[in-house]
């Protein structure tokens, strides 16, 4: 397929709209403006697969079919959507009899899918299609002096991704270092944030996020950069409860990698969704003003 069509998913239209607000300008800036897939439906995430896996693959098939008609591959910034669409795509294009049945049902409702679409994450596209060197050339405001803990979470790097290591990925570190930031050695970079557990079993959710925040703090990070809406949400909204429960001030700004990238590319601060942050970003602005002199 030629080029990419943008699949937002529910988060980027809801609680994580600052991810959309930063990823779109970034891709415009690098000369690859993204159009949104018309009438996409939700991917179903982990929930649908826990209830009915055949239907879960089928609803993803509808999205894949819509994308195929545009002649473009899917770009999905949410790690949950990315994995779910990729998993279903793999299943639907397999030789399993169940897959053939789903394809037949898709066709019967005018949603034929031939299996031509690839599903990519923006990080993958930036690294593989655009290239770090080209991005480096476009930097107008290097993120000098900013120490970043690059957090990959789980579903971007496991189990299907072939562009980075499932246990110790480095591509986000490479990208943010290319635009001037310093990536700290972050051993918790692929440890799980708990996903929806923060909303269902809070005690467990708080503990998991405490571990992630504590480790970033210990490494002297000024902020955590994320690639997934649920990770960003969990790491941000649990902070006030963690501070009071564990009596430990682990407060840290949690930003999307695209917000940082946009900043480095010279896009106006106001156009990157920073005002959506619940945690104060003052320490980040201060660091950037000082440009690393401390």
């Amino acid at each position, binding site marked *: 397929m030629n080029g990419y069509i943008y699949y937002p998913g*529910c*988060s980027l*239209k*809801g*609680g*994580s*709209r*600052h991810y959309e607000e930063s990823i779109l300008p970034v891709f415009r800036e690098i000369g690859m403006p993204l159009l949104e897939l018309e*009438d*996409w*439906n*939700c991917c*179903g*995430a*982990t*929930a*649908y*697969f*826990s*209830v*009915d*896996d*055949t*239907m879960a693959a*089928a*609803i993803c098939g*509808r999205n894949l079919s819509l994308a195929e008609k545009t002649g473009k591959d899917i770009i999905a910034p949410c790690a949950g959507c990315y994995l779910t669409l990729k998993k279903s795509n793999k*299943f639907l294009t397999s030789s399993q009899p*169940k897959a053939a*049945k*789903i394809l037949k*049902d*898709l066709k*019967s*409702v*005018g*949603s034929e899918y031939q299996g031509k679409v690839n599903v990519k994450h923006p990080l993958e596209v930036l690294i593989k299609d655009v290239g770090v060197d080209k991005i480096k050339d476009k930097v107008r405001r290097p993120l000098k002096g900013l120490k970043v803990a690059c957090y990959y*979470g*789980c*579903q971007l790097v*496991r*189990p299907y991704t072939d562009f980075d290591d*499932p*246990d110790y990925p480095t591509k986000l570190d490479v990208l943010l270092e290319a635009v001037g930031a310093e990536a700290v050695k972050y051993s918790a970079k*692929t*440890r*799980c944030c*708990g*996903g*929806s*557990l923060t*909303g*269902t*079993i809070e005690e*467990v959710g708080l503990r*998991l996020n405490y571990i992630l925040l504590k480790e970033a703090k210990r490494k002297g990070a000024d902020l955590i950069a994320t690639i997934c809406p649920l990770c960003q949400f969990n790491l941000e909204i649990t902070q006030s409860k963690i501070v009071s429960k564990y009596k430990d001030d682990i407060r840290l700004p949690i930003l999307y990698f695209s917000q940082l990238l946009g900043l480095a590319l010279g896009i106006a601060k106001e156009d990157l969704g920073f*005002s*959506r*942050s*619940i945690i104060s970003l003052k320490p980040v602005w201060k660091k950037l003003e000082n440009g690393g002199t401390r």
Partner: protein
Amino acid sequence: MEIQKKVKYEEELDAGFLEEIKAMSGCKEIQECIQCGTCSSSCPMAVYMDYPPRKIIAMIKSGFKDETLKSFTIWLCPSCYTCQVRCPSKIKITDIMYALKRKAIQEKVYPARFAIPVLDKEMTRLISKYGRNSELWLIINLYLKSHNPFGMLKMAPLGIKLMKTGRMSLKRESIKGKKQLRGLLKAIREDAQ
């Protein structure tokens, strides 16, 4: 104190359970398990589980159907796939956990007001009906159908912050192709019968 018997003799086990699970999608490699424990040591949730993943696999293989399907473990798996990518026998452990969740729901042996299956079912319902999930409605329904509805009050300070930053809306999301989507799900349902 009396000693409680927790082991089961052969006649008390469910001999068909392994085959039942093996027939489910992603589960056929389960018999290759060498009980090395890589899954349990990799699992960020293992400390909260009643049976860590290695034990769950052993229990399936031995026919402990009731204990497996009623375990806390299967609901705690957040699908981080760490066990799955590390398993030396290439067993799709995360997919097995998904299969167990589905089986527990199908056989109605899960705690009906327990938040995790409620969330899964509620999100599935919203998407099947409207084609889209609406975050706020999902949370409201989660509280009404599981936790004490008054628990929502505790969420108010966060809700206000999210409202203020424009990250929460009452709008119910929906797609144009609802009819097509429902038709698709109907066809799948009929195929399964």
